[in-house]
């Protein structure tokens, strides 16, 4: 065998030759599909991200994984269109094979870099074989990417890299004739070891052996310039127990985001808010132009409160205060919507149905296209018995008209900061996501809706936040107020409910609805009797009914049965045990409530 002198390592063959191309499909657009592909193939879940530090690097990019996080290059140089699509699928299918069939990381111990590369190559071949056993079609996906280097038989370029690319092909496609004894040895030993594939020691031994052979043949290997072939494979970093930087945290985005916004918002530069909001459509409310500080609360109304002990209404007892809404970039709302494409899709479907309206069966009609049998029979019996029959014996179907106005009232008290069992996600963050999904869907129906939130700090400070008003669209202004919402303080529900009722009652719609979303029992710092605020809220609900406003509640407290049914009445609330389900449930509830 003729071998090239190591100094003449020709890097041009290691890199695809085409120049940097213009705009391909951005990775972020591919990720949802690739995540699904991974889930479909292996039932595996992983977080897919862009490789950090993109751009301007000499080394060709490979995927990389670390536990359940899979990093993908923004683009593969030299691959575009259809081929690029297939390459990403191939890369995810390969990394997924590691996730599905991999095992504990190898220890590098005293292995040389070449041996490490070879052992990785064998492991790649092993997991691919196992994957192809279950999913034979993967062979067609992977095969075309093997050719570039592996078919280069020119002795002048028989570097370690080329030999390894050819070994990769020999292991992938063992039926191909080989003219190189080292390759044949590697292939034959690999398949002879098949019964021991489960034992990581077997591959380790074989890889070390093959590495020694190359060493004896004086084939040099430069671990600095070495790039795994074929291009769809990963950089092997996930296979080895190197001294690694701590793995990036999973699902840290919402927390990190919250912190970032908080700090950016801290000194509310005069004028900055205006500039931020000016980006969107104009806000019909003058609030955004008012010089009020978001934390400067101003008394706007007094509400009565029910003293169940004394059995009387205390007039002007609770003070409602309002302030200029805090804002944060409206794009955050967009991000929450995109983060759950499933929910968005299901919600859109639901709303599409709701929009069509659903035929209602109207019974006991004076006229109609069908006989209402029960009514007709009743009439016949009355006739015979000598009574005056009710002549409305017809039945017809009509599309129900939608004419309603809904006010969503959010409890954003301190307790919504609680995290959901075992995760870093807070109730509040799920709540605002859910509201974002619902709002986006409602904007579609054309139903009138408003979005308000409340918390309290004793009876003199019932804070009422207007995120979106009935008259305005769910545009950038409303979105940035939703993004700017922050939880804190207590839950004086009755007072807030009275304000909401007043607002809803002002709407001219046929049906007026207040939908309260709360995570706990009413409470406040100046109230010790646990029944007091419950009874007051109950009273507020009754008042709403008197004003022609329906009140419905979504409770996020598994143990809330007692007080929720006390306040809202049986059948006028639902409990959602798993808070994570709220984004999905909330639109469903809305659709059911309003048809």
């Amino acid at each position, binding site marked *: 065998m003729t071998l090239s002198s190591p100094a003449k390592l020709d890097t041009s063959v290691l890199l695809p030759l085409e120049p940097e191309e213009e705009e391909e499909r951005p990775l972020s657009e591919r990720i949802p599909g690739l995540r699904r592909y991974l889930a*479909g193939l292996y039932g595996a879940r992983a977080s897919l991200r862009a490789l950090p530090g993109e751009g301007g690097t000499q080394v060709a990019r490979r995927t990389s994984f670390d536990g359940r996080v899979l990093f993908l290059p923004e683009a593969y140089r030299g691959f575009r269109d259809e081929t690029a699509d297939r390459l990403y699928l191939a890369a995810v299918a390969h990394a997924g094979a590691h996730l599905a069939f991999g095992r504990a990381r190898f220890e590098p111990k005293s292995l040389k870099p070449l041996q490490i590369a070879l052992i990785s190559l064998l492991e790649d071949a092993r997991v691919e074989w196992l994957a192809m056993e279950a999913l034979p079609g993967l062979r067609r996906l992977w095969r075309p990417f093997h050719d570039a280097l592996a078919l280069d038989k020119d002795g002048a370029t028989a570097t370690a890299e080329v030999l390894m690319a050819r070994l990769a092909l020999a292991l992938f496609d063992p039926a191909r004739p080989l003219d190189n004894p080292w390759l044949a040895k590697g292939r034959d030993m690999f398949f002879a070891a098949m019964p021991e594939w489960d034992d990581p020691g077997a591959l380790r031994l074989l890889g070390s052996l093959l590495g020694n052979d190359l060493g004896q043949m004086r084939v040099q290997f430069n671990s600095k310039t070495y790039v795994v072939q074929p291009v769809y494979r990963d950089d092997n970093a996930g296979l080895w127990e190197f001294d690694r930087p701590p793995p990036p945290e999973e699902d840290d985005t919402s927390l990190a985001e919250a912190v970032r916004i908080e700090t950016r918002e801290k000194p509310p530069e005069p004028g900055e808010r205006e500039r931020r909001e000016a980006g969107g459509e104009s806000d019909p409310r003058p609030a955004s132009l008012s010089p009020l500080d978001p934390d400067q609360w101003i008394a706007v109304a007094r509400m009565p409160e029910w003293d169940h002990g004394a059995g009387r209404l205390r007039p002007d007892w609770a003070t409602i205060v309002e302030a200029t809404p805090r804002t944060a970039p409206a794009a955050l709302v967009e991000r929450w919507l995109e983060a759950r494409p*499933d929910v968005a899709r299901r919600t859109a479907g639901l709303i599409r149905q709701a929009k069509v309206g659903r035929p209602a069966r109207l019974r006991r009609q004076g006229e109609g296209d069908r006989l209402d049998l029960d009514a007709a029979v009743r009439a016949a019996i009355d006739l015979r018995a000598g009574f005056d029959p009710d002549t409305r014996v017809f039945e017809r179907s009509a599309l129900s008209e939608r004419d309603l106005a809904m006010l969503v009232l959010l409890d954003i008290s301190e307790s919504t900061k609680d995290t959901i069992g075992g995760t870093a996600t807070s109730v509040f963050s799920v709540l605002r996501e859910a509201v974002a999904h619902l709002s986006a869907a409602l904007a579609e129906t054309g139903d009138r809706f408003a979005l308000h939130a409340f918390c309290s700090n004793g009876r003199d400070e019932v804070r009422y936040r207007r995120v979106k008003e009935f008259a305005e669209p769910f545009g950038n202004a409303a979105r940035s107020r939703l993004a700017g919402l922050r939880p804190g303080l207590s839950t004086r529900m009755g007072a807030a409910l009275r304000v909401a009722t007043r607002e809803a009652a002002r709407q001219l719609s046929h049906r007026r609805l207040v939908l309260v979303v709360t995570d706990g029992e009413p409470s406040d710092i100046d109230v010790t009797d646990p029944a007091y605020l419950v009874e007051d809220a109950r009273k507020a609900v009754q008042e709403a009914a008197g004003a022609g406003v329906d009140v419905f509640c979504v409770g996020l407290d598994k143990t809330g049965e007692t007080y929720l049914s006390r306040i809202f009445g049986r059948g006028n609330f639902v409990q959602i045990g798993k808070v994570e389900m709220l984004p999905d*449930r909330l639109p469903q509830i809305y659709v059911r409530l309003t048809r």
Partner: protein
Amino acid sequence: MPLSAYQIAEEPYFEPQGGEVALFSAAHALRQPVMIKGPTGCGKTRFIEHMAWRLGRPLITVACHEDMTASDLVGRYLLDAGGTAWHDGPLTLAVRHGAICYLDEIVEARQDTTVVVHPLTDDRRILPLEKKNELVRAHPDFQLVISYNPGYQSVLKDLKESTKQRFVALDFAYPDAEREAQIVAREAGVAKDVAVLLVRIAERTRNLKGHGLDEGASTRMLIQAGRLIKQGVGLAEACHVALVLPITDDMGVRETLSDVIAACA
């Protein structure tokens, strides 16, 4: 015999998944109300047909829907030449004459409709026909069975607790790969290797539950695809029209499904 039309003559083919035949037989011996849970197209209806045949009982099936009223179940007065005449609804028919009454997808019915089964499903075993002023005592052979798909309910579309707690439940899932292939081969009339492949594809689509699909491909869908293949349609095309297109309208998810299916064969 008033229910002879509801008697099942031929054995409906059913491939048992576990102990469900024995369990159902035991529940039937006690006339316990049974609820069968499971995703769509996993064999719930087929199982009940098979059991009715095996136990030699007539089977009356009602597909429940939202506009269904209690009268639709128990019966009503109808006008005829001589005046009005009472007509038993399907439930009453089964109660009077001793059939298995199968209420399919019961959650679709409104809760005020479903409560009519309450007096039938406790020790009383009676069905009051309010309008007719009659109290029907259930025939000793009468048994109530409902089906219920836990995946599709929303919070507001659920059985009342007081309804749920009257039933013993059998939980169905898609059969294991071996059995499912057996079923597909037999029902679609395709070769075993084709059936195995279809089942492999189904397993992968079921992985996508929660990733864009509410439910993966059902056994029923595989049988449909298999039947097309039997007719000479190619595998890829059969999967496309019988699995991919019906299951989702989302273009991205369809693309993933096609890619995943391509990886299977």
